[in-house]
């Protein structure tokens, strides 16, 4: 089943993809599969578990299902302060 999701890129992910967000149509069932698809598209050098996934402004496990129109972020390790 295809879904359209809105991916927002921050920090080094934005630098790598060259954009702050994009909407894609995907057959990925969960956020882990979505990361793999995006990582392949942009040749990310990072494993998925370097990030924390967030769906609709909530941090979620990698096994979380994605739904049509979800807003997804991959949060890099924090470096505030």
């Amino acid at each position, binding site marked *: 089943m295809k879904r359209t999701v809105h991916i927002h890129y921050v920090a080094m992910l934005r630098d790598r993809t060259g954009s702050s967000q994009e909407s894609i149509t995907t057959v990925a069932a969960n956020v882990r599969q979505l990361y793999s698809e995006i990582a392949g598209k942009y040749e990310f050098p990072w*494993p998925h578990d370097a990030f924390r996934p967030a769906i609709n402004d909530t941090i979620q496990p990698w096994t979380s299902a994605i739904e049509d129109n979800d807003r997804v972020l991959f949060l890099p390790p924090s470096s*505030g302060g």
Partner: protein
Amino acid sequence: MFNLADHPIDSEQLRNEFSAHTAGALVVFEGIVRDFSHGKKVVRLEYEATPALANAEYELIVQEVARQYPLIWTRCVHRIGVVDPGGIAIWLGVATAHRAEAFDACRQMIDQIKARVPIWKKEYYDDGESEWINSP
């Protein structure tokens, strides 16, 4: 209460928000931008964050720390955007009844904030290079 600020942090104004007379101790941590890092001269930092996620994670941290220490008041502001060396990147105030728990709670909170709140820092150096800190 937590918020992100795209303008210089006013320590005095934040301090003046505190008015809890039940607290005998207020510990304030100010994180200052250094002009050196990894052996290089830093000319500026740039911070970015996801506001909703940052706020939610901060609130979780407050709840966790409050289970260990009797927090009376907390306040935190973190900069986003460009911050020059010497500028305040984060202001954190933690008030409790007594000083020992205020020091400990403040230490725990700043450690957790730095580790978990979705905020990212890019360092710019005088050789023209730049680097995302903690990049995987």
